[in-house]
């Protein structure tokens, strides 16, 4: 967890989406729809968050019939604290605005 993560606007958008229902597992497509990030941008951020220890991942245990198991994501407890801190700092420095503020 000692890795310093470069926090881009896209990362902040994703963190905001993950913090919306922090204890709930979410899949990549849903996150993509929420944040408007393309898969080529979304997954590298997810990979970095996981490597840093801020993100928990797991595969669906019970797949819905006719659909394969999907990879699910949520912030770890330390990840949540870190994400809130980063979002606050970014908002204060006017580097980033929450989705509602942008609308």
């Amino acid at each position, binding site marked *: 967890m000692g890795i310093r993560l470069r926090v881009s606007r896209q990362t902040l958008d994703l963190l905001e989406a993950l913090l919306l229902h922090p204890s709930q597992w979410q*899949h*990549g*497509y849903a996150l993509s729809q929420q944040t408007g990030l393309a*898969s*080529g941008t979304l*997954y590298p951020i997810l990979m970095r968050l996981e490597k840093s220890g801020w993100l928990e991942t797991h595969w669906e245990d019970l*797949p819905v019939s006719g659909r*394969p198991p*999907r990879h699910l994501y949520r912030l770890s407890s330390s990840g949540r604290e870190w994400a809130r801190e980063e979002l606050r700092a970014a908002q204060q420095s006017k580097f980033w605005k929450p989705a509602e503020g942008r609308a």
Partner: protein
Amino acid sequence: MTMPATPSSFAGRIAYRSLALALRLWPEETREWGAAVLAEMGEMAEPAESFNWAAGGIMLFFRAIFSRALDWLRLPSGGTITEGVSSSGSKLPRPPRWTTALLLLGAVGLLLLPQGQEAVSSLEASWRHFELSASDHRKIGELAVRAENAKDAKGVAFAALSDPRTEQAVQIADRAVALDQKLVWIYASRFQRPAQTPLNKERIEQLQSADPENAFVYLYAACVEVEPQLQTLHERGLKSDVLEATLADDDKWMELMGRAFRAPRYDSYYDKHQELSREVWSRERDLGLAPVVYSLWSHSMPSVTEIVTFAKLRIREAGEKRAANHPEQAEQILGEIQSFGERMSAGTAPGIEKMTGLDVARRGVEELQKLYASTGREAEARDAAAELARIEARKTQMANSFVPVYAAAVEPYGRRAVFVQCAALFGIFSGLATLFCLLSLELGAGLSQQGTGIGRRVLRLAADYGPLLFLVSSAGFLLSFRPFAGFLTEYRAANSPSIDPRVFAGRLFALEAANPLAVLGDAYVRWLVLTVTLAAIATGVLLRGILRGKQAG
């Protein structure tokens, strides 16, 4: 991980299959993420959305490949991402692959520089005793075609002078002369012996009419005239009295030699040949050293035997005139001999021609002195004696002065050539050893990683530090070749003073003679090396067996 259902649309199916294929090739450590992207594809209803999602997945795949390649480059040779790295078994750190790659690229880059290419090709030519390789033949042929298309008569002439295939060379020479009539001298510069050259009467007459005052063209024509007879005499064992009689009976030869002795000028075209080679070589650097050396070393020389024989025949004729009480005619003949010798020994002709000229002049003056003494012309006899002394002094001075000049100009190159050859051999050895060790580690990576024996340790050490040695030896080779590169550059420079052909040849012979591998050309040495190698292997196997037996006991 089960595979998701394929999208129903055609574009979606294409995108899905592309991503599924990428997943098969996905690096192990991040493949789960590829599967995660693929698993979402069943959720998309729109074909365009499926396509964009898969494109993002493919992008992720390339990022994973790139990242894996970077990780791989950060490991030392033989190291794998999954299995990690074992130590080299020594205290020395193991350099990463990117360092190895940079060192190898640096070494190869040095050798690919124009200076490096010249050094390598010159060294290789010296190993072939400056004989032309298949590549040289090709380059000469290409030069002939290119130069002819560009109407570059000198380029075509150079190709004619350096092409060893005689029939073809004569045709190329014809094309050069057709482009520039002034280059007709090239006929006499290379195509001396009819056995080697189908140089016909027409070309010889063309040469004579282009340069009618030059003794060399008549000497050349006389040589061509008498060559078949001399060839037969040589085969039967040449005797000087038979030779003299044969040549004296050949009226055409006698006439041509007479014209040569009376011609007001002597030029064997060596300077022209050298100048042409310099000019063409300076703009056709890719040609390399071998064609230039071949061209200059095969330059025609006049036949010393024929010149001396003709001088002797004329001296005999002068004696007969004297005996017939025509001393003025005898004097004229001997004067002609002296003048020809002096013309031949003057100017910038190569040393052998100058020495021949002095010898002919000496013969003429010697007979003149006898003639004057026997006819009571004491003052002229004294002048002839003084002239004789002057000729002898010139001969001595020529012979003696060249030795220190040659020594000063060539001997340092002998020592330098040893450095060049040693650096080259060290470079080749280190390059091949490095290549072998790297391939052994990379192709048998798993095996090498597990091994801890001395062989494996040596393999790793050589793969890790061999590239540095290769770079150092390549740089050393280039540095050691610098004196030769400087000499060749000086030779090519149009305004440089003419380099004595013996010095030119001497420096190149020094490079050739310093080749330590030349001893392998000796069958005895080859057998010796083979025997010692096999004996060493047998001893090694025996010792290993004994040691293992003791350990087992």
